């Protein structure tokens, strides 16, 4: 028993040293790096109405998702045109939502109807990552097929939100209705 405790103490000491030496933060290996990169690319293939072309470009994140940190890391040296990009956590019960892209994580996907209702007819590109979301109001849904991220694009949902989508992006995804 004493031996086990000594072993455990040694391990905890090892971890403690590692934690104490640096206790601030940054990026971490994550497969969501690819998600974040693709979300950023959407800004080049989607056209927002002119009235939404001023101020910061805001990407909202609904639910807990590693994509938030990945996006924060990614956009540190990027802009949309000349506009600064801001990543903002959003809550279903929060104040007015003002964003250009809304990423609804799997964590929050059970509330997709609420999000869609709140965003009705607003020019927001709704991006999701759960099975069947493209038919539940999402504009672009990530799915994994053959170990790769694929896009399900609902053109109707996009157009209803007064957004334009480039044919190049349409051709890279599967268009669903």
């Amino acid at each position, binding site marked *: 028993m004493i031996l086990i405790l000594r072993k455990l103490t040694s391990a905890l000491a*090892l971890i403690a040293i590692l934690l104490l030496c640096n206790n601030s933060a*940054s990026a971490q290996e*994550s*497969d969501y790096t690819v998600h974040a990169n693709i979300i950023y690319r959407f800004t080049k293939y989607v056209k927002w109405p002119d009235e939404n072309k001023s101020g910061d470009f805001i990407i909202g994140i609904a639910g807990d998702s590693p994509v938030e940190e990945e996006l924060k890391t990614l956009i540190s040296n990027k802009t949309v045109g000349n506009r600064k990009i801001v990543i903002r956590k959003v809550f279903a019960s929060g104040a007015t939502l003002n964003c250009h892209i809304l990423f609804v*994580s799997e964590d929050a996907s059970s509330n997709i109807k609420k999000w869609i209702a709140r965003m009705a007819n607003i020019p927001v590109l709704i991006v999701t990552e759960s099975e069947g979301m493209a038919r539940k109001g999402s504009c672009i849904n990530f799915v994994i097929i053959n170990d*790769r991220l694929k896009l399900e694009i609902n053109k109707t949902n996009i157009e209803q939100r007064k957004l334009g989508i480039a044919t190049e992006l349409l051709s890279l995804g599967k268009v669903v209705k």
Partner: protein
Amino acid sequence: MVKFSVPKLIFLCAVAMCGMQIAEAQYIQNESKIYDSLSLKDLLNVKIVSISKAPEFLFDAPLSGSVITKEDIRRAGSTSIMEALRLVPGVIIREQSNGNYDIHIRGMDNVPPDAPFEITSNTTTLVMIDNRPTYSYLRGGTFWETIPVDLNDVEKIEVVRGPAAALYGPNAVNGVINIITRQFKKAGLHAVLNSQAGSNQTQIANGSLSYTLDRVSVIASGNYTHRNRSQTSYFEYVRNEWLENPQYFVSFDYDTVRNIDNLYPDRNLAMEKYAGNLFVTYEPRDRMLIQFSGGLQHSTVQKILSETGYTPFSTNVSDSRYGDVKIAIKGLNAQLSYSGGTQLKNLQAGNKYDFQTVDANVEYNFTKNNFSIKPGISYRSAIYDDTKYSDTVNKTGVFNSRGEITTKSAFVRGEYKMLDGKLRLVAGLTANKFNYPDTTYLSYQFAATYKFNAKHIIRFVVSKAPRSSNIYDTYVDQTFSVVPVGPNRYARRELIGNKNLKLLTSSMIEIGYRARLSSDLNLDIEVFRTKMKNVTAFVQDRIYAYASGPDSIYVAPVIAMNLPLELYQTGITLSVSYAKKNIQIKPFVTFQHTKIQDYAPYATTPDAYPGLPNIYSGIGTETRLKSTPAFYGGFSANYMPTAKWNINLNAYSYSTQVYTHVTNIVFNDGIRGIDHIKSKTILNLRVAYEPVKGLNLFLNGKNLLNDKTREFFKADDMPFSLLGGISYEL
């Protein structure tokens, strides 16, 4: 009393960590930079594969496992796939000679104790390349040097700890190591070249050339490795000493063996191997993928696996080829693979055999809302034949037979998400029908994960997995000694296979917890309890006599049998991963207690010598299995002070072990056949400089502490070594 290297490890880790000045450097988004250069189309082609044999993210994985990427491996300076596994939690790795390793997941090795190396080596881990098994059915296990791919081919390596046969097929008894090969994402021509050389005449070169056009990608790759031993002496069992330039060996039977140069033609050589591979990927349309890979390999190594009777090392030679076709159409996945070749387990006469294995697997994935189910069938056949090379009359070959092991499996894997996806239930059930023993074994895997939120997840796993029988235990028919015991009287020992062995089976219960403690700090804890039974060994039965002309021959049959022993292992693995822009640290440790019950160090049946101890004499006993370390672990710390420099310090450490070889029973003097392996910490440092994008120059120091102690039973000393090299990626 177990002696630890942990304090040393802590000290080194602390120095490494605290000594580093954190410069706000151009390290930012080094991973993202790779993606920045890709088009959206290429990004959608980035492969995302993780454990549980389905694409998913590691945090959510229901099984205990780890993934190391090609970047992790490159930065750490690992010189081979085998060495790279030292970066993975839960893997015990001992170097036998330069570049040749004994690799176990969580240990349970040297079982049964006091047995030949073939039995005690790892036969319970399924090693795969892109889901193609590379398992050797001769006696079970993996001949690592025969793996045709090298680090230039590797995208990532997934390691699953614990029984996983329900997901991966038979022989995933204690875990799976799946090597995922690289796919180049950029359109056009792409080239990778790595070369390094250094101590002990180590020369490593490998490279890949790929061309991607629209929906077709072709990669040709090749690799070459030469490594010398760190010493030229050999340990001899009988004289119990290392012999420099021996002119002869004395065998177990006190025969003098003088043809040493035939058996060890190059006493310096640890490893020489080369291989070539071709990978073709074709995506004719969305949701349809056709992949082909094929290749050839040659290897000659001096390692400890095949029993010679006088010294642990043997020269092993392999020439083999493989082909693998995978087709994925929507939910349908089919895979057909072949491997075959000729191998020599040592250079003694009659130790050569041909083999060919075929694996076929078809599965279909149905998904509906929160429920998915994947039924499938698979077929495996392994044919080994040494009749062309052996003296089948006097039965002096390896197994003197043409044997086949077949496994037909039907499986179903299902997954159901409930409570808004927070609770996830994963179940796998496989029925395996073997030809020998002629019976059906069930393996299962049930896992549940509960995700409190995106930062905390717990998992619970119950699983059971069998190992298939092997050619040797099933078919061997070998006369391994004929000794005159008087006028016209001879004693003969015969090895006899057994087609009715119960299959070695492992079962496990495990609880795990993963946490994202902050955006840059991940913690993974797993607590496991594993039981293993139906271990096999060769056991002498009753001696009988018969007349052959004027001679009387006494035959001692030595038969493959199940031993009554059982193994129990309880342990905990902790791993942490931490990153701060230009610094990344991944420490990991495992503490485990392994005990063996009902074991007796006697390889005889009760009928062999009535009244004397036998394999059942240990019933009711329980001792700690000292050959599996109680502690092992390590860390990798990477520091990128500027965009052009990369410094990586990594360590691997284990506690003391005691290996008992079959010669412990043969000589029974309490000295010979026992090796006390000292605790050891192996500290490595790689410093790399990138003068222009894609070109890396590096120095690679191995075992900086110059702890020369051997890592395996009477193996070579493993001192400090230094390599320098260049890698280029176009």
